[in-house]
């Protein structure tokens, strides 16, 4: 292969990763701000409304406040892993963003196995949480870490299986091709309603959102694995959580809600840069809708107990996913879609 193509690829890679990393922090800020405002509204409060117009910079200020705070490490903690954990969690979230299809031509790394990569990388965050819980030398952290391990292990499987149906239908593991398939055949939502339901519940559990947030159950374990963390180390966990919420919503709409596609037929002649902008617009619209729904859920629901959670995972979601996959596969074979 010639040097030009190589250089081009390298440059493209550097550019995209830089853009992604630059994108993560503002995204987290936006999601946090949404959480602040929506929860406040549903609690009959105004929420932050002092900093910036309509208080829209509150979360940013929180971010800088976290930067300014003291960074404390318990003297019994294992320094190496203690410092490693937040970085791992954050990088897991950031790396999984590489394959998010924002728009036609706006995918950082357009693997042909993007979906597999995504679930593989996102699963890394559990390792970070586990390490954090162990390294903190604190019983609350330990319990929280173990909870996260159990929870994620039990939810990876239904989560992945619920997607396999869609993959089988589309016959691809590439996000872009999956979305193209949806443009042709209509949104996956219509083909895989059960898969969508399983995916949504499982994804909430995967990213420790209420009602499945027993990893940092503040009324039981003070803050779970993050109890002993302070300053920017805690900030990394914090950002990673909200980043994961954004990513999950993004992946969900890519898989089931037609990704960057507009609700009406996507104008094919709209290509190039304009198409990219148009797709990005629709992508963010859909994603933030689901972020808002997740936030509203948090404002409404109480926490599920950990044994109920795993019971539901193994006894309900997994069989459902299996059946769903079976039916889908059968349908594909019979009607050779």
């Amino acid at each position: 292969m010639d040097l030009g193509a190589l250089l081009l690829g390298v440059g493209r890679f550097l550019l995209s990763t830089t853009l992604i990393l630059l994108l993560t922090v503002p995204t987290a800020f936006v999601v946090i701000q949404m959480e602040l405002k929506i929860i406040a509204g549903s609690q009959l409060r105004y929420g932050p409304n002092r900093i910036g117009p309509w208080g829209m910079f509150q979360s940013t200020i929180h971010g800088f406040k976290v930067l300014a705070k003291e960074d404390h490490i318990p003297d019994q903690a294992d320094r190496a892993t203690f410092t490693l954990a937040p970085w791992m969690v954050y990088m897991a979230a950031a790396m999984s963003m590489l394959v998010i299809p924002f728009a036609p031509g706006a995918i950082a790394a357009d693997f042909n196995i993007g979906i597999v990569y995504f679930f593989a990388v996102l699963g890394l965050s559990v390792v970070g949480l586990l390490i954090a819980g162990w390294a903190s030398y604190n019983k609350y952290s330990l319990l929280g870490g173990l909870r996260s391990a159990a929870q994620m292990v039990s939810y990876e499987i239904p989560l992945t299986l619920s997607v396999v149906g869609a993959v089988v239908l589309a016959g691809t593991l590439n996000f872009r091709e999956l979305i193209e398939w949806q443009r042709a055949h209509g949104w996956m939502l219509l083909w895989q309603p059960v898969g969508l339901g399983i995916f949504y519940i499982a994804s909430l559990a995967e990213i420790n959102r209420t009602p499945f947030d027993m990893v940092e159950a503040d009324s039981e374990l003070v803050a779970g694995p993050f109890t002993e963390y302070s300053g920017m180390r805690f900030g990394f966990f914090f950002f990673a959580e909200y980043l994961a919420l954004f990513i999950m919503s993004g992946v969900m709409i890519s898989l089931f809600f037609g990704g960057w596609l507009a609700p009406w037929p996507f104008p094919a002649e709209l290509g190039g840069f304009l198409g990219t902008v148009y797709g990005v617009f629709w992508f963010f619209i859909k994603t933030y809708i689901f972020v808002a729904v997740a936030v509203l859920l948090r404002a409404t629901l109480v926490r599920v107990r950990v044994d109920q959670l795993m019971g539901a995972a193994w006894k309900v979601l997994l069989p459902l996913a299996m059946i769903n996959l079976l039916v889908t596969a059968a349908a594909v074979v019979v009607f050779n879609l």
Partner: protein
Amino acid sequence: MTSDVKIPDPLELERAEEARLRSAAGLAPAARTGGEYSGFESVGLPDRPPETEREQELYTLDEGEMLVNMGPQHPSTHGVMRLVVKVRGEVVIDIDPVLGYLHRGIEKLCENATYTTVMTYVDPMDYLASMHNEHAPAIAFEKLFGIKAPKRAEYIRALVVELNRVFSHSLMMGFLALDMGGITPILYSFINRDEVVDLLSAISGQRMLFNFFRVGGVNFDANDEFFSRLGTWRANVVKTIDMSERVITDNEVFRARTIGMGVLSGKDAIALGVSGPNLRASGVPFDVRKAHPYSIYPELEFEVITHAAGDSNARYLQRIAEIKQSIHLIDQIVDKMPHGPVQAQVPGIIRPKPGRAYGAVESPRGLYSVYAVSDGGPNPYRFRMRDPSFISLQAIPKLMPGHLIADTMAVMASFDPVMGGVDK
């Protein structure tokens, strides 16, 4: 076991184990960076041999067990309480509530105060039921002095007391949800509580520590402002209650977390001395307002509400039902309220004849009673307060074993203890 058992310190065990492994692997013993402090020393292991069998049982750890110390600084210990929880994994083996972090010696303060100034001291005891805290001493002292409060005073007392019950119960709804991770209902509860508290400050002049009751009457008569505010509150209280109810009562997750949790049978409840809503939620129809009528309750019509199940959900539903009942009572009181004075003639410094008196009221947390002994001096010779949440808290160690850590706080919140009253 003999009594001079060596309590194994987890830290020591771990260090010994590490040293053994290292020596086995031919490594040099590890240099610990940590100072004297270590996270495990916060579990509350006493640095002395156990004194009672109970201590020995609690602080002896079997394989795979550990002690988790919840509180006194913990997000959801309703004030400052400490729970030493012995867990195996997530399962609670044993619980030992450690009390006294909020002890202010209120009984002793009251014994050094004159009868009229006792009211100011009992206020901050059970700070969610200050009116009830003042009601019981008022009853007891009036028995002691042989005076009677005027009719209107009694009606105003009953009115403010029921208002107090409303906001106390509605706060319980919020805290129960909060301890299960629901962050919204507590704010709805506080909206309701704030309106009631404004009401009470309109009649008493204070928002939290009212100091409203007087021996032989009440401090102020109810004025127009109070009644107008009462009207507006009455107009939308049901709406506010329903709002928080709609969020949690039928919620499947909430039901899954409460139904069958911390089941307290009626017999056990009576044996423990649990009273009030917690007792009635176990199916025992005991209400001081009916069993030992005081104030004007004989003139009001209401029946004792009970729930059979005796679990957290029953206790929660019991509270809601009692809120509605209190609102019903408030309507009756306002209708029947007579005119007249609100304060009997009482000398400034009272020296009752030597004797003893007992006054009991139905506080939001149960049977709250006061026992006062007079030796003829200007201040009570002995002043004893029976606080219901102290007793209902004794049910926690009995109920919890077998449940998960996640449920300890939830069940405790369903008993609605107030540490200020527990520790006095």
